[in-house]
């Protein structure tokens, strides 16, 4: 957990304190970007831009909690912008993001398949699912992060999971045949 003094020191131009904030939150920001964009290079570039924007906005950050919410919101909005600029393209399986070592997975191929299928969802549905299952946010928190109503979040979540279930079923049928 970031102690408040690190945030205030970063705000005063302390480079080491800013670096500490980056290290503290890089997995969250990079994870949202990577799971939303499915492109490591674009995800890293976007994540760097988010932290550079933070560097220019440190004076406006009031608390560590505000910082986390700010980072999630800015990352999500940038992901939506990128998705608007380019139609999603399917990526090779080996380039799909899967966290941790493959050995930790009960079924790493299934995990990669699921990650790839998440990438086929519309940008906002994808982000809702990433914020729900990567960040473990409540529906109200997702709504606040993405500036949408709780009912819209519920709808995106339900439809997204329905699609994933259907696609997983189709994928399993293809494997069996």
């Amino acid at each position, binding site marked *: 957990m970031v102690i408040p003094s690190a945030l205030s020191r970063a705000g005063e*131009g302390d480079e080491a304190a800013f670096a500490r904030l980056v290290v503290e939150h890089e997995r969250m920001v990079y994870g949202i970007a990577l799971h939303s964009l499915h492109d490591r290079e674009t995800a890293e570039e976007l994540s760097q831009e988010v932290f*550079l924007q933070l560097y220019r906005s440190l004076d406006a950050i009031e608390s560590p909690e505000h910082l986390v919410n700010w980072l999630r919101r800015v990352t999500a909005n940038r992901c939506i912008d990128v998705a608007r600029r380019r139609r999603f393209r399917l990526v090779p399986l080996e380039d799909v993001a*899967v966290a941790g070592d493959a050995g930790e997975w009960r079924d790493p191929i299934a995990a990669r398949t699921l990650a790839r299928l998440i990438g086929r969802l519309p940008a906002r549905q994808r982000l809702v699912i990433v914020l729900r299952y990567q960040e473990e946010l409540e529906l109200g928190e997702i709504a606040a992060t993405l500036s949408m109503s709780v009912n819209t979040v519920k709808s995106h979540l339900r439809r997204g999971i329905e699609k994933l279930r259907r696609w997983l079923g189709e994928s399993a049928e293809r494997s069996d045949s």
Partner: protein
Amino acid sequence: MTIERELREALRRPEAPPGFASRVVARARAGERGEGGRGRGNAARALAAGVLLALTLGVVGGYRWERRRTAERAAESAVTALRIASEKLNLARQNIHNHAAE
């Protein structure tokens, strides 16, 4: 395994690429040099505020100086007018006095 649990596993936070934080800090530092940055940005804002304050004080000071000059000119004109009136009054009084003596 339920799909929610599968999603949680598939969407665990990944490690950021090695050296990510260093690259961010380097870019922030480069931006500070290239774009003015936080420190120099603050200095630029302070300079701009100083220039604005000086301009404001200059305008206000100039306005007050102009008002004082106008008042001084009015006072000088009034004194000149009084002096002329006084001279004409003296001349008239002298004429009356001369006429009475004749």
